[in-house]
């Protein structure tokens, strides 16, 4: 306890625990100085109070009540105060003064802390460091306590004596009057009246004489007069200013005075010389006075007064008792008693008040007099008395002083007393007393090195106090003491620091707030406490804005926005403030802000590719290419064959098992697995359970990112990625574009190097700033230039450090060697979107795409960097050559100039095409590339609804130049291609264009027909090569894909009515009305056939033409009507069985020869049902026929029912229209197929033969034979499944290239 505790490092004024306690328990003496006396003192730049404060009163003996026992007092403190310092000052003024202390305190200590974020406070080293983190706190505390108004209940702050001072420079006559008026108790000063102080105080009179300038004789005269009037004991003559003014030096040490100054401003003022006219002799005179005053006057006065007051108390108690007794004797009646009790109580209260006051005085005086030992006993009695009479405020006061006394004597803090006092406080509304008590407790625990309790009471203090400034200061103190605890309370430190920071912010002390907030960030950095971190960053953002540190403000707000945990309101607020700080910083210009994670790029989903990239494994265009011969074919074929074989084997095995066991239908079936897992379900032994066999779906191959890709000059590279709005508010992004650069290295990024560089520059600048003052004036100009350069450097590195960029803005926006597509995208709260952006490199070499540039709120340019995947070990290679694979997605190699085809559709938009008619679409082909192109091929990608005509006309020229003998090889190639593409119902043709030069434009015509109504996608694929010059091995050709939508409208409209015949039950009459919808085309009705085995179609009558002999010609926009009789043939065997079988056999043959059927069925059904159908076809047909018969019977029965209205068909009742175009006929012919809901009567009648060649099917078999039904159902959409029809065509010299188009419509029967 005796040594200086390390915790007192924060408070230089505390030299030890005793000094602190004494400073609390020292008597107050009022010093009233006349103007002339004050001016004499001010010659030393000191007041008389300053002179007195510097004196230490030490080592003297004091007589006690027992004369034998004298006490030695080692040191004694007297509070010398002027009347102004005692009187309460204006609150606003004091607040301003206190505010300034804190404000200036930090700016003074800020010299080495330009940026609090950089020079972060080292928490770990805090305990070992000797620097005071809050040097202003001590001054603040001193002045705060000084300016605290004296409470009427405060016993210690009442002045015990007064000292009146005059100088010898006053007239002798006036001197005595002046002296008496300085402190006249007959006219007491205001502060004594206002604070209800005791007037019975000791009065001392002093005359000071300036030895150099004053008149000593005169001084002596006045002094004698003073002695005459007030007595020798109370009067003093002090000679001062013995030193000569010319010397102008500090004879006495400066510290002697400055240590006791209340104002820190005065202490730090280096220009003023204090005590320049005082020598040692003068100082001796002052000390002599102070010592004599305390020893000879003050202590005897206290002793005398204590005895006097105690006598008064005793007498008053006796007197009070006597009065009570006499009153009771006099009044014996009840009524009179009541009155007497009233009087009694009134008297008692008055008397009690007096006793309380007296007791308080005696307690106070006893502290000073007996110097603690006896004071405790006095206080104990006093507290007991106060408690008894209910003077609670006085009671608490005495308890508080008891704690201090106990601490001084026993060196312990009585915690019982503390709890007792705190309980009393909780009962009463004594906020001010409570605050001062917390101050005392915090100090006490600080002295006994208990950091936990110290921080606790500082915390409590900050909570209790209304004033934000003192609250924040004490909170900050609390935080530092958390670091002295063992183990260190980092989190409490954080909380206290941040709370202090918030309160500083409320006081508008932004620098302090910033400092606290930055320090509070340290314990949680990188530990994912994001809500806390956000709040701190937000406050920091605001603070730095007010401190005009806009870069830092932007950075802080940026960090808040990057972690979107706040509610929507908070986010909007943050964005507003962020934008405000950005616009004020940039003065409404654009700025690049790096690493602003709005929106977020999904790292996993980034894909870089060409729109027409044949390298994409999933693309069907690859199939075309290998058929052209650009890709090796054999391997692929083998793979396919193997797969097929495997599938066949599996199916057979599955079927065999199902048949052999004769169990349910479900067994042995293969179905698509919905989840697409690679697992296969095992067959369980339980036969009753239905097992769903699963095909493992092939996963799409991921694009290989580890191989370097080559792209072409001027080719659009597409990057696909997901963007997510992390905020809970709407977001609009403008100028969303890809950013890239050519060459090896990109512009500097914000790295640690830059950070260190920034700090280094700053550090050097500070150093140089100090040295520069010492330089000669002649070097000023060169220094200025250097300074400017340095300032520029600092600014630049500062910007870089904060992740901002103003200088390179132009480079980012304008790059001549690439074209980047710009988009505007708006996001809903937390929305995720797939974005496709294009970039076109216009320079050869290495090209790197490094991210997406976006513009937020018009001012902020943000670049979201694409992150590469980490290096991957390559296990395929030998270990020796095993180099890790790198992610080459964004590192592209741009190769030689290549031609670039641009295709435009002329008059294509909003044009509708008729079903079945030939559509001619003119196209313009333009080479916008750098070199000319050749070898131009065109194809239509697989689409189930569309077939392309083999002729693609270029004005009147034929597509393929057959006469050219030199191109025989190419012809064969073309033939091969045709075969290949026939699988996809389309063909690949070489366009009759030898070469398209640079910027050359050619028009061609493309013809096609559609066989399905509705809107269709038309995918055109162009293939071409560079005509001359070096061709890159990896990119020998280019592709162009074009997608257009076309609308197909119906070309004919058929209305039918089905009526039961009056002659026969099993006969029906069909009235057909066919309307040609086309504007120009003449259509020809060719044949009408029943495909149903049991229904025979017989033409009844025709309007004009006979169907059997002549074709019905349909003029544009005209209609024709005819009648057909349908006869049910009950006992007839299926007519078409043979044909069916033939068809199937044909299919089988084709399967052996080529792959055509496989592919067809894949297109239609999506499943491999070919072989299934082929195997059990005959058996199923028989069953089918029987069922058909039954169903037909139902229909006939239905027709018999008179109530049932049979068949009321409208135009929707037509199911299918088969259009057939023959080579020889210029006009178009068509077949009809009728369907009756579930019963199908399918017919087509041939013009020449009248042979029934149709097939029969029944939709009622849906559940029983799905595959069969499906096949037929889909066959209506595909020409190739209608083999007999084709077969007929073949007989009539029809070829495969003829087309059939089918229309399907619903049909209902009531």
């Amino acid at each position, binding site marked *: 306890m005796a040594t200086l505790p390390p915790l007192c490092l924060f408070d230089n004024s505390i030299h030890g625990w005793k000094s602190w306690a004494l400073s609390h328990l020292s008597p107050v003496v009022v010093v009233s100085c006349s103007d002339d006396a004050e001016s004499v003192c001010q010659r030393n730049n000191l007041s008389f109070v300053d002179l007195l404060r510097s004196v230490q009163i030490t080592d003297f003996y004091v007589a006690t009540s027992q004369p034998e026992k004298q006490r030695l007092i080692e040191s004694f403190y007297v509070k010398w105060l002027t009347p102004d310092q005692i009187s309460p000052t204006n609150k606003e003024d004091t607040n301003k003064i206190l505010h300034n202390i804190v404000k200036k305190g930090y700016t003074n200590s800020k010299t080495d802390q330009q940026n609090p974020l950089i020079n972060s406070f080292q928490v770990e080293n805090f305990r070992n460091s000797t620097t005071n983190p809050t040097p202003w706190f001590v001054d603040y505390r001193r002045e705060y306590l000084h300016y605290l108004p004296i409470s009427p209940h405060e016993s210690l702050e009442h002045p015990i004596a007064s000292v009146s001072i005059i100088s010898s420079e006053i007239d002798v006559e006036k001197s005595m009057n002046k002296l008496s008026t300085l402190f006249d108790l007959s006219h007491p000063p205001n502060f004594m009246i206002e604070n209800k102080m005791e007037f019975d105080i000791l009065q001392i009179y002093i005359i000071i004489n300036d030895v150099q300038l004053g008149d000593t004789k005169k001084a002596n005269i006045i002094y004698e007069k003073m002695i005459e009037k007030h007595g020798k004991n109370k009067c003093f003559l002090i000679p001062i200013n013995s030193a000569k003014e010319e010397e102008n030096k500090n004879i006495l040490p400066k510290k002697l005075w400055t240590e006791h100054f209340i104002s820190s401003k005065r202490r730090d003022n280096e220009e003023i010389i204090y005590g320049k006219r005082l020598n040692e002799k003068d100082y001796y005179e002052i000390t002599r006075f102070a010592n004599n005053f305390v020893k000879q006057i003050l202590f005897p006065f206290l002793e005398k007064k204590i005895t006097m007051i105690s006598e008064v108390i005793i007498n008053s108690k006796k007197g009070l008792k006597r009065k009570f007794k006499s009153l009771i004797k006099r009044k014996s009646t009840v009524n009179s008693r009541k009155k007497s009790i009233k009087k009694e109580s009134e008297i008692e209260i008055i008397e009690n008040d007096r006793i309380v006051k007296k007791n308080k005085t005696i307690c106070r005086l006893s502290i000073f007099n007996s110097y603690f030992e006896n004071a405790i006993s006095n206080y104990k009695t006093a507290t007991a008395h106060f408690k008894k009479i209910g003077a609670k405020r006085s009671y608490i006061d005495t308890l508080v002083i008891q704690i201090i006394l106990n601490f001084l004597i026993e060196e312990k803090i009585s915690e019982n007393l503390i709890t007792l006092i705190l309980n009393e406080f909780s009962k009463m509304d004594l906020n001010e007393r409570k605050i001062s008590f917390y101050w005392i407790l915090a100090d006490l625990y600080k002295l006994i090195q208990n950091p936990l309790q110290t921080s606790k009471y500082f915390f409590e203090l900050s909570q209790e106090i209304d004033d934000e400034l003192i609250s924040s200061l004490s909170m900050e103190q609390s935080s530092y003491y958390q670091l002295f605890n063992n*183990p260190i*309370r*980092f*989190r*409490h430190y*954080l*909380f206290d620091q941040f709370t202090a920071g918030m309160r500083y912010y409320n006081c508008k002390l932004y620098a302090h707030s910033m400092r606290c907030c930055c320090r509070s960030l340290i314990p*949680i950095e990188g*530990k*994912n*406490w994001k*809500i*806390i971190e956000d*709040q701190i960053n937000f406050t920091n953002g605001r603070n730095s804005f007010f401190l005009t540190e806009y870069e830092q403000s932007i950075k802080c707000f940026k960090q808040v926005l990057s972690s979107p945990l706040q509610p929507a309101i908070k986010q909007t607020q943050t964005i507003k403030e962020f934008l405000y700080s950005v616009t004020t910083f940039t003065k409404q210009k654009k700025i690049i802000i790096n690493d602003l994670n709005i929106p977020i790029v999904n790292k996993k989903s980034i894909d870089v590719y060409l729109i027409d990239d044949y390298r994409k494994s999933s693309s069907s265009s690859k199939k075309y290419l290998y058929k052209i011969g650009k890709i090796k074919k054999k391997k692929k074929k083998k793979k396919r064959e193997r797969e097929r074989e495997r599938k066949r084997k599996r199916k057979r095995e599955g079927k065999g098992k199902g048949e052999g066991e004769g169990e349910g239908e479900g067994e042995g079936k293969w179905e698509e697995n919905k989840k697409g897992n690679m697992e296969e379900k095992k067959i369980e032994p339980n036969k009753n359970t239905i097992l769903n066999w699963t095909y493992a779906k092939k996963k799409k191959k991921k694009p290989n990112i580890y191989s370097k890709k080559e792209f072409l000059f001027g080719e659009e590279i597409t990057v696909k990625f997901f963007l997510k709005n992390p905020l809970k508010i709407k977001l609009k992004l403008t100028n969303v574009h890809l950013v890239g650069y050519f060459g090896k290295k990109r512009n500097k990024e914000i790295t640690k190097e830059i950070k260190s560089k920034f700090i280094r520059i700053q550090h050097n600048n500070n150093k140089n700033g100090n040295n520069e003052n010492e330089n000669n004036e002649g070097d000023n100009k060169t220094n200025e230039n250097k300074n400017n350069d340095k300032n520029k450097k600092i600014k630049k590195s500062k910007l870089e450090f904060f992740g901002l960029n103003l200088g390179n803005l132009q480079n980012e926006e304008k790059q001549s060697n690439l074209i980047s597509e710009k988009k505007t995208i708006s996001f809903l709260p937390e929305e995720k979107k797939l974005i496709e952006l294009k970039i076109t490199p216009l320079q050869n070499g290495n090209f790197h795409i490094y991210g997406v540039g976006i513009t937020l709120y018009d001012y902020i340019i943000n670049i979201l960097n694409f992150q590469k995947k980490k290096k991957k070990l390559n296990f395929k290679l030998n270990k020796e050559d095993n180099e890790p694979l790198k992610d080459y997605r964004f590192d592209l190699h741009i190769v030689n100039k290549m031609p670039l085809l641009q295709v435009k559709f002329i008059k294509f938009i909003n044009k509708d095409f008729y079903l079945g008619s030939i559509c001619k679409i003119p196209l313009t082909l333009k080479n916008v590339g750098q070199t000319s192109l050749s070898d131009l091929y065109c194809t239509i990608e697989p689409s189930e609804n569309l077939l392309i005509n083999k002729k693609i006309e270029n004005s009147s020229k034929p597509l393929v130049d057959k006469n050219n003998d030199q191109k025989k090889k190419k012809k064969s190639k073309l033939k091969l291609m045709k075969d290949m593409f026939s699988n996809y119902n389309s063909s690949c043709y070489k366009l009759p264009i030898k070469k398209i030069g640079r910027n050359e434009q050619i028009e061609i015509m493309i013809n096609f027909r559609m066989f399905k109504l509705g809107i269709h996608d038309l995918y055109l694929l162009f293939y071409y090569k560079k005509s001359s010059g070096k061709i890159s091995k990896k990119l020998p050709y280019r592709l162009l894909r074009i997608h257009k939508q076309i609308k197909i409208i119906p070309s004919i409209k058929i209305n039918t009515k089905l009526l039961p015949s009056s002659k026969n039950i099993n006969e029906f009459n069909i009235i057909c009305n066919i309307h040609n919808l086309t504007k120009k085309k003449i259509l020809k009705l060719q044949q009408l056939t029943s495909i149903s085995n049991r229904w025979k179609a017989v033409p009844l009558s025709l309007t004009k033409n006979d169907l059997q002999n002549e074709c019905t010609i349909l003029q544009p926009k005209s209609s024709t009507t005819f009648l057909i009789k349908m006869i049910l043939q009950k006992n007839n065997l299926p007519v078409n069985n043979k044909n069916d079988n033939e068809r199937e056999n044909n299919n089988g043959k084709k399967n052996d020869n080529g792959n055509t059927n496989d592919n067809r069925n894949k297109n239609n059904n999506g499943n491999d049902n070919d072989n299934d159908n082929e195997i059990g076809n005959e058996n199923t047909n028989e069953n089918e026929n029987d069922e058909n018969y039954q169903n037909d019977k139902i229909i006939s029965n239905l027709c018999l029912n008179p109530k049932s209205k049979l068949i009321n068909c409208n135009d929707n009742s037509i199911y299918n229209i088969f259009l057939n175009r023959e080579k020889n006929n210029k006009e178009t012919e068509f077949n009809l197929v009728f369907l009756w809901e579930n019963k199908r009567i399918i017919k087509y009648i041939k013009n020449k033969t009248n042979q029934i060649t149709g097939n029969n099917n029944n939709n009622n078999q849906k559940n029983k034979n799905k595959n069969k039904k499906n096949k037929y159902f889909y066959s209506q959409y595909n020409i190739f499944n209608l083999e007999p029809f084709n077969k007929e065509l073949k007989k009539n010299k029809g070829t495969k290239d003829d087309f059939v188009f089918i229309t399907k419509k619903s049909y209902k029967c009531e």
Partner: protein
Amino acid sequence: MIVVSLAIVGQKNNPLYIYCSEPENKRKFEYIIHRSLDFFEEKVNSNSSKETKSQQSLFLGLLFPTETYRVFGYITNTNYKLICILNDLTSKNEEVSKLLRSFHHLLIQALCNPFYITDEPIDSEKFHNGVLEKILN
């Protein structure tokens, strides 16, 4: 016994999971949870000196009370911290200990998940549902 908030803090004192019954007070709870880590360190230090490591010692009891809440702590052998904030000022230690032990079991299950990355926040729905179930029951 009303559980207002439950938190699981990792070995590096980083939050892994925070449940708040009052989302508007999430920040407040995060501060309380964060501050409670100091008490963990203090309690663990005092326990280690006694060298008593049993199942009971995992439950650290009341860490500190605030004006409206009581904060209880539980530390696993692998230094994961479970912090439970209760609204009920009369809650018994035994009940809280039982509850925290059940959370400990849930935590073990979540950590055993091979897809869980250590020191990353726990996103498991199963874990969250488990916590909710325990709290609501």
